[in-house]
């Protein structure tokens, strides 16, 4: 493994949620150009892992290294400026503001207006429906459209690493396919992706390899093919 192409590395990261010991020593890594997935049941610590990486939660122990730089303890907005973008669980779009305003906020760290316009055109090309409704209140969007907006918003800066937290949650199967198609396309355009999913079947189709979390620990890791064949994974997360 070439060390220089490591985009993200977690070394024994521990996080508390109040008194709950949510992460109990997570070590994992993502290399440039990969799609890596974090699997696990509800409450296993998948979202907490992402929140700790993006700085919303603070790691009490361990180190997080992004593009060769220690980002443990940095403020979320500083981490965003480095090109690590987190699309949180539940989309968290700004309801009450228009789609265009949501996208503009996604480009908050950009100083250059022409670059902003370029990025917005790119997002509109990926999600034509957003262009059609750009001046509407984002609260009026359907679940799938909200997910598209949340992803579009994260693409307003050129992300080096995208953290996606359950992008398929609550979506109809054809929309899940659509979102997955976009994820693959973004990855081909050079965005490295760390994908959290409950839908392990879908996630393992996209990812090159994955980690399985259980009560704040990584209990299994391997390439997607192996994980797909693992009986215990199949039983626990693929719903056999």
């Amino acid at each position, binding site marked *: 493994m070439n060390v220089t192409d490591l985009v993200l590395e977690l070394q024994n990261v521990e996080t508390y949620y109040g008194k709950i010991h949510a992460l109990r020593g997570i070590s994992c890594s993502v290399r440039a150009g990969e799609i890596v997935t974090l699997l696990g049941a509800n409450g296993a610590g998948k979202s907490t892992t992402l929140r700790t990486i*993006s*700085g*919303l939660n603070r790691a009490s122990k361990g180190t997080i290294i992004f593009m060769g730089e220690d980002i443990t303890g940095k*403020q*979320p*907005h500083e981490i*965003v*400026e480095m090109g690590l*973008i*987190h*699309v*949180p669980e539940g989309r*968290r*779009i*700004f*309801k*009450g*503001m228009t789609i265009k*305003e949501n996208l*503009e*906020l*996604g480009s*908050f*760290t950009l100083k250059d207006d022409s670059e902003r316009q370029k990025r917005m055109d790119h997002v509109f090309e990926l999600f034509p429906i957003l262009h059609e409704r750009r001046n509407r209140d984002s609260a009026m969007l359907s679940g799938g459209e909200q997910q598209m907006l949340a992803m579009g*918003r994260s693409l307003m*800066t050129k992300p080096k690493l995208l953290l996606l937290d359950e992008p398929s949650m609550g979506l109809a199967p054809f929309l899940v396919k659509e979102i997955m198609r976009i994820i693959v396309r973004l990855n081909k355009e050079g965005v490295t992706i760390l994908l959290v999913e409950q839908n392990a079947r879908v996630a393992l189709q996209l990812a090159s390899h994955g980690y399985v979390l259980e009560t704040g620990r990584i209990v299994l890791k391997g390439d997607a093919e192996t994980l797909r064949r693992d009986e215990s994974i199949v039983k626990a997360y693929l719903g056999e």
Partner: protein
Amino acid sequence: MSNLDIILQQLANGLILGSFYALVALGYTMVYGIIKLLNFAHGDLYMVGGFVGFLILSAISGLLGESWTAIVCSMVLSMLAVGLLGVIIQRVAYRPMLKAPRLSILITALAVSMILSNGVMAITDGEYLAFNTDLGYEGLDFGNVFISYTQLALVVSACLLMVTLTFFVNKTLYGKAMRAIAIDQDACKLMGINVNRIIGLTFFIGSSLAAAAGVMAGVYYGSLHFSMGFVIGLKAFTAAVIGGIGSIPGAMLGGLLLGLLEAFGTQIPFIGSEWKDVFSFGLLILLLILKPTGILGKTEIERM
């Protein structure tokens, strides 16, 4: 005086009073929108704004007299100084309390209010200060209705400030970030927004608008007193709630409505102007019963 004259005169009076209320209510509503704090010290920032404006005017009156130029200069400088004071208060008193129970930060706001008003009382010995200007008494004379140029200028400046604020909040990226923080703080952090800096900016803008109103009130009433922030604080709070707390157009509308209500209330037979506070707070009670979210407020589940 004919009925029409009375209506026109009270319309003018109400608009002036209403623009003071609106300017102060804006700070209330912006701070509430962004960190869900009822900043009880806000009325005192209006008072401090008046005094700072007075100090600056006294300092530069040798150079510029007490003309419009001098007053505009002292208003702008007072806005900057009080805006900065608001940021300092936020940083020192409120930010450490943001994660504490809601009541703690409310009590902190009351303490800040007392520190400001009692501080100014100590400095001024509790005396009234005459806010002298030589703006003259010319104006528009429509027979029985008279509107001085000073009154006109005050309403126009208040409108200018409100238009500028509306533009800022709706059209600029920082303004949009302010509105977004009121919706979802964590999501804002993930956009790369330095939330603390935007909260500071909100305090700066809100406090400087209150200071502008304070200087205007000094010009309009011709005197200043350390207690002048108390009642306007309550009125502005009322205006903000009437308009829908957290809503910027709501605060403007609520302020103007309240000013007009008080002006016209004085014309009801057998009821004198000393009853005007009863109208304001009566309306507040009525509204809280009928439409607790205010005229332009959104229905929202309170997350106490």
